[in-house]
């Protein structure tokens, strides 16, 4: 135990030093393809929450008491197993999500990072993000997470209106949120992100914009604007169904989104993804892995992953999901070393569909180089160049296809799902009619 602390301590110190180095804005820049399969991002799911939020249908549990030691051991075991299975040599980002991972002890975070550092190279400048809930993360705790190796915080602030926070079932007040934000910025300068929700029932555009302006005054270099999705099975959904709450107005949400992104642009933020905004190059590298269809390992109950199990001699990218329910997941991890419940190999076409759907969420879109890493034969021009429907989208100014690649315009980004209704079938059709490559055997 003592030696591991020393080791992780050393890694943390190096990481701190690395943070001070200027960051490269690497989003969209291709990396050498041969190393892509030896690198991965790691997602760690902490499944517990203090209280159920009224809008959340994600995999989370409100426990009577958490056996944290057992949970920690299982997370460590599963991280080791999957890292070995994947044959990954370098982990470039770790994201502790949930649930409410800030309810876990910093020791658990440290133990997972230590396991990663032992199994692979965890470079000192790797991004290690923790989702933090304002009430469960007072300053002292945040500092302890920092000491454990966390170097970036994502704060679930959600709103600066106490009535809205109550409606959302959050345990914190607007004041709590701002205080946590201030402490986080002090501890992790330039490495703090905040979430703000829009499109809540009865929310007004002007009032919401005032919240955003106020948040701009307090926030760091990264911000996420999320439109509320009413998910089945949540109390908010039920209240809207029963008519006790008004249904969110999609027109107002669209207006908030448009106004909000304009305000942020004027404040020097780059909208580098549908819901994500950064200035001073503070883009999240972890999320970039999702959008760029890089490899990622998911550990913890219900976590998702996408990687090639090279350690087991595999060559195909697989979609994995871990067992949802924490107790069952733990049993499986203790028995088999991991709790993978489902593992589906992805066809080449499926991977390309993901490259397209995820890549277009970003401002750089899908570049020709990026596409080529996944499909060297069929170019973006081959797929989309001849389509009348795609041409219409370009003429409407929603989509661009040029020497850089395929991407959404500012207007197009807001209606991406409608664009994909045309682009995905077009890709499927082009894929079916492609001339099979003479060499490729798989």
């Amino acid at each position, binding site marked *: 135990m003592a030696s591991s602390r020393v080791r992780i301590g050393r890694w943390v110190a190096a990481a701190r030093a690395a943070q001070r180095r200027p960051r490269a804005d690497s989003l969209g820049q291709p990396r050498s393809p041969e190393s892509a399969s030896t690198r991965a991002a790691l*997602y760690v*799911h902490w499944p517990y929450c203090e209280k159920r939020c009224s809008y959340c249908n*994600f995999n989370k549990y409100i426990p009577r008491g958490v056996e944290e030691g057992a949970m920690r051991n299982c997370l460590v075991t599963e991280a080791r197993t999957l890292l070995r299975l994947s044959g990954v040599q370098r982990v470039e980002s770790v994201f502790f*999500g949930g649930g409410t991972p800030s309810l876990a002890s910093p020791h658990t975070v440290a133990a997972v990072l230590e396991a990663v550092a032992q199994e692979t190279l965890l470079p000192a400048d790797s991004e290690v993000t923790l989702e933090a809930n304002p009430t469960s993360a007072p300053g002292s705790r945040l500092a302890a997470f920092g000491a454990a190796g966390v170097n970036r915080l994502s704060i679930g602030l959600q709103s600066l209106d106490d009535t809205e926070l109550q409606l959302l079932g959050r345990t914190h007040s607007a004041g709590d949120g701002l205080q946590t934000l201030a402490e986080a910025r002090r501890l992790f300068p330039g490495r703090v992100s905040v979430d703000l929700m829009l499109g809540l029932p009865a929310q007004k555009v002007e009032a919401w914009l005032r919240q955003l302006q106020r948040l701009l005054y307090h926030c760091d270099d990264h911000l*996420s604007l*999320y*439109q*509320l*999705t009413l998910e089945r099975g949540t109390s908010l959904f039920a209240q809207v169904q029963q008519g006790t709450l008004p249904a969110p107005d*999609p*027109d107002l*949400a*669209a*207006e908030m*989104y*448009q106004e909000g992104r304009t305000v942020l642009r004027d404040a020097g933020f780059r909208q580098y993804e*549908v*819901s994500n905004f950064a200035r001073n190059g503070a883009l999240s590298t972890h999320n970039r892995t*999702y959008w760029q269809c890089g490899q*990622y390992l*998911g550990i913890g109950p*219900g*976590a*998702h*992953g*996408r990687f090639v199990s090279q350690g087991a001699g595999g060559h195909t990218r697989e*979609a994995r*999901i871990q067992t949802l329910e924490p107790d069952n997941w733990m049993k499986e991890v203790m028995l088999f070393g991991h709790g993978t419940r489902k593992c*589906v190999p992805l066809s080449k076409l*499926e991977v390309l*569909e*993901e490259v397209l*759907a*995820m890549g277009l*969420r970003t401002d750089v879109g899908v570049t020709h180089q990026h596409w080529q890493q996944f499909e060297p034969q069929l170019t973006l021009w081959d797929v989309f160049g001849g389509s009348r429907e795609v041409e*219409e*989208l370009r003429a*409407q100014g*929603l989509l661009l296809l040029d020497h850089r690649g395929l991407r959404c315009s500012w207007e197009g*980004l*807001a*209606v*991406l*799902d*409608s664009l*994909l*209704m045309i682009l*995905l*079938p077009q890709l499927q059709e082009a894929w079916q009619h492609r001339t099979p490559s003479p060499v490729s055997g798989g």
Partner: protein
Amino acid sequence: MWTLSGRALAPWAAGAARLLPPYSRLVAVLEPGATCTPFSTAELKEKPDMSRFPVEDIRNFSIIAHVDHGKSTLADRLLELTGTIDKTKKNKQVLDKLQVERERGITVKAQTATLFYNFEGKQYLLNLIDTPGHVDFSYEVSRSLSACQGVLLVVDANEGIQAQTVANFFLAFEAQLSVIPVINKIDLKNADPERVEKQIEKVFDIPSEECIKISAKLGTNVESVLQAVIERIPPPKVCRENPLRALVFDSTFDQYRGVIANIALLDGMVSKGDKIVSAHTKKTYEVNEVGVLNPNEQPTHKLYAGQVGFLIAGMKDVTEAQIGDTLYLHNHPVEPLPGFKSAKPMVFAGVYPIDQSEYNNLKSAIEKLTLNDSSVTVHRDSSLALGAGWRLGFLGLLHMEVFNQRLEQEYNASVILTTPTVPYKAVLSSAKLIKEYKEKEITIINPAQFPDKSKVAEYLEPVVVGTVVTPTEYTGKIMALCQARRAIQKNMIFIDENRVMLKYLFPLNEIVVDFYDSLKSLSSGYASFDYEDAGYQTAELIKMDILLNGNIVEELVTVVHREKAYTVGKTICERLKDSLPRQLFEIAIQAAIGSKVIARETVKAYRKNVLAKCYGGDITRKMKLLKRQAEGKKKLRKIGNIEIPKDAFIKVLKTQPNK
């Protein structure tokens, strides 16, 4: 011992399994040994001998009732009481075999069951011919009644006489059948059988002491219904010694055995191997199988005069077993029975496959379904927008819905249905058109073929006499509704101190779409409605187009009365607005008469349509959703570049209560 009895049972079980049809879904009947039958094991194995039942021991009867008054429940009890089916809790609407019948609690298809019943030391053969309850199916009712000598008129002790009770009573009365009034649901808290007795006396002129008060649900007094059937309904007036004369009163199609005709023998007898002739087609067939329905087909050696059963004789198509046709023995021709009026379609709608590649599947599904429902008329039709399809004629809107539901449930076919219309007529003035149509008066079943006013002397629309029975407190609202539907009041009778019966002359098109729902909603469900055909009247009709960004939507072309154009146009535009999903551009919805726009709505363009985030890298769910939507889009109808989901059409066309 145990082994022995098991062995002893085996042949019977095998015999029973052989006797029962392969597609039977009735578990209670399928259980060997559980069924209590009046026949011995040996007899069942050997097929029952029907000669044991002389004419005087036979009763043919039907149950008629307003919907939900308990017809099917009473039928279940009668079947149990006579040992036709086992007494279990599972017996719910045993004769309602179709999924749609059980789901909707209605009877669509007539069914027949033969009951064996011992009364005062004698075994009787009672043929129960179940009939549908809804107005749309009154042709089925009359068809079934022609094989009967009496009816049980079931009336709910709480709701009393309803519109269909009246209509059904008069059908039975006109057919000169004995009517046994049965007041059902006397166990209900609000039951008032005495009041219902008085209504029956007043409206039908039947003395109140003739009413039998029962609870079919609890089985109370049901035995006395069977006794009344024997005592009050006369045996059929037939003669076993005459040559065969059999009435076809229904037919079904089985893909393995061909047409199964339900027949009532008026004279003579019939058995396997007989050569029979259809009086209608003059075709000769050899009888493969005869038997009784209990309620599944149970083969017998013979059927004798007065009996009701089934007959299979190598007919390949239900049109070969026309309802109302007479069958007789080869070389022994008889006077055919008076034929039935064939059912007349009152509501027409275009039916198209969502995708033309599904045309053949849909074609075969429609063919199979119409084999069992000859009341649906089928004309091939095609539209520029929808490709090849059909214009089908239905007996009413419920009939149309049921047909569509059966296409979906039983044949897994999905279709686009166009606005239901009624058969309008036009008296042509243009010599050229008269020459083209070879007649002066034409029937228009497709609104797209509506001839222009300039070529027409006058338009005619079908009218019906509608009967409404309602608690008096709703009379005012109902009269206003009828007036708004261009109806003319014919009379008004108080059937008791709280209830009134109204008769109106309605233009048919005013009631086919949403009249029934409006009536139900404004009377809190208490008013009932039924109608009968009353010919044609002149009408000021015009054709209205619905346009999306300037393109006509053919399936929404509507013929309307001039007075109604604005209201109808506005309603269609509003419904379209509510059901068209947003697209990447604005959509203008317009209703127009010729070039004149009379109503307009706008669907705004999408401003935001993108999922906020994929939780923890859960791309699978997002991709599945996107791909499912993209797949669904392929099936969408396109008008110009506007994509229209099938739902949007259905929402526009579907019955909706008035706003």
